[in-house]
């Protein structure tokens, strides 16, 4: 009945930097797209310069109005959302959000969405000369009728869009995968073979809530994306499976609430992790994750976070 915890050891000069496709992040912690705006709204709560990166809400070529409300609802240990990728369009994004983020000492990962391959390509081209560090391509949003998840649920379509984006992208390209598939490794392989520099997973799992008193769907869109701690075991499993399958780095996410959760993803093979819905619950989750990872490294005598990545096999 001993717990097998490693004894606490001396502090060492630790490295928490991680590198993905040539980009160095001061620590492995970012936010999940769509849960943090472009960071402005959380400025009161945390110093954005402490984050490894800020990942922005998905942006399309032109403003999108998104879905009707209700767009969000709570479920056991998580939430459903069907925002429908409302965004102000790439022009406003480049004029307003990027300059705002450049005011902080953090990397910028821009999440890109579109209805067609051309739309994705348009955004990626538009970002070519912008000071952003990395692109995350959302081919996995379950809440819009066209595009998005369709690419993320079909290996051929995913390969095709990845190749086209890679052909024009000036920044490293991370493909964000959907968990709503039979075999996540098939999708990961498709993205890798088409040249993706990394993978983000998981996006939300499609779910539904019914209001039994009103006898209607809790969300106007009927279905929504499930996120929060409820999905963590599915996310960890997929990160692990993908890490055993591809060589490109992974940004892991899905229900991270604390450093222990983040470490599960890292040990399973994620090079970075993203905090999503928990930003809504504890706006300083990211900071607690960062310091908690450092504590764990101290406690376990880990000098370089690289030693932890994929250490459980």
């Amino acid at each position, binding site marked *: 009945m001993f717990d097998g915890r490693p004894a606490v050891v001396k502090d060492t000069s630790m490295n928490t930097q991680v590198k993905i496709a040539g980009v160095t992040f001061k620590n492995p912690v970012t936010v999940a797209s769509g849960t943090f705006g472009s960071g402005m709204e959380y400025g009161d709560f945390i110093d954005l310069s402490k984050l490894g990166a800020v990942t922005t809400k998905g942006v399309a070529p032109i403003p999108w*109005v998104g879905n009707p409300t209700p767009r969000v609802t709570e479920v056991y240990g998580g939430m459903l959302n069907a925002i429908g990728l409302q965004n102000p369009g790439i022009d406003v994004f480049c004029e307003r959000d990027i300059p705002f983020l450049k005011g902080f000492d953090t990397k910028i990962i821009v999440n890109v969405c579109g209805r067609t391959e051309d739309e994705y390509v348009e955004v990626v081209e538009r970002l070519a000369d912008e000071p952003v560090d990395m692109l995350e391509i959302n081919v996995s949003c379950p809440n819009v009728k066209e595009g998005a998840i369709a690419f993320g649920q079909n290996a051929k379509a995913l390969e095709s869009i990845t190749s086209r984006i890679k052909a024009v992208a000036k920044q490293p390209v991370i493909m964000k995968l959907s968990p709503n598939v039979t075999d996540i490794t098939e999708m990961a392989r498709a993205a890798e073979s088409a040249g993706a520099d990394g993978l983000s997973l998981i996006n939300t799992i499609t779910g539904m809530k019914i209001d039994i008193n009103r006898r209607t769907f809790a969300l106007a869109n009927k279905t929504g994306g499930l996120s929060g701690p409820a999905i963590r075991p599915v996310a960890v499993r997929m990160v692990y499976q993908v890490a055993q399958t591809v060589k490109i780095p992974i940004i892991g996410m899905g229900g991270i609430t604390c450093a222990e959760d983040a470490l599960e993803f890292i040990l399973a093979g994620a090079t970075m992790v993203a905090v999503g819905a928990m930003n809504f619950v504890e706006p300083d989750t990211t900071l607690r994750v960062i310091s908690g990872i450092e504590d764990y490294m101290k406690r376990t005598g880990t000098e370089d976070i690289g030693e932890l990545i994929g250490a459980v096999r």
Partner: protein
Amino acid sequence: MKKKVQAKVILQRKISDNIYDLRISTELAREAHAGQFIGVYTNDRSKLLPRPISICEVDGDRLRLVYRVTGSNTGTEVLSQLTPGDSVPIIGILGNGYDVDDLVTNYRHPVLMGGGIGIPPMLQLAKELEERSPYPEPYLNTILGYRNSDLFLAEEFKDLSVVHIATEDGSVETKGNVLDVMDAKIGTGLGECDLILACGPMPMLRAIAKYSREKGIKAYVSLEERMACGVGACLGCVVKTRETDPHSHVNNARICTEGPVFDVDALDI
């Protein structure tokens, strides 16, 4: 500055069927104004999101929240079990409230309208308007709409304004809704109304929007929508607007951030 903090429960009592009156002490109180709200978290870890609850009254470092328990196994049911001394995590102060100076300066005959659980935020509004009112006598009219004779807060409004009551079942005063009172009492001070300030269920607010446009009366309404973040990040809580919203660049404003108080003329409801 918005913060997430632990507030302390000072008092909680049930004031009507399913309606609770919760007093908490928190550093955030000093920044709270009429029309704003806070997000209240439960300590039940299966219910993670904050519950948006309006500021019903501010008193130094204390906030008063009046809220309805919406059903069994809800977050508000969990909150209703809080007792003095308990900690309750809150986030705030959220949203834009009323521009009370503007209201006091530019309108002579404001009518406050609260329907159901839309009544509580009107209390702090009445207080702030009265406090800054240049008139010797209470110059406010308040119309409160209830389902039945299970009134709550009505007495407290009487210290601040002339109170009119509507009940769906007609058990107290006017039978019907808040606008039925406007019609029925047009001969009284209500007839001079040049400003409507309202909070209540969407059908009521829609009716008020129509009414105010028809009569050319200025109206500000406080909206409600499902929220996740409460701080403007998730885009969950939007309302359709007539013009392109300067933040979103589409015809959607965030209720938690641009609202919850809106000029009805700005809304497409």
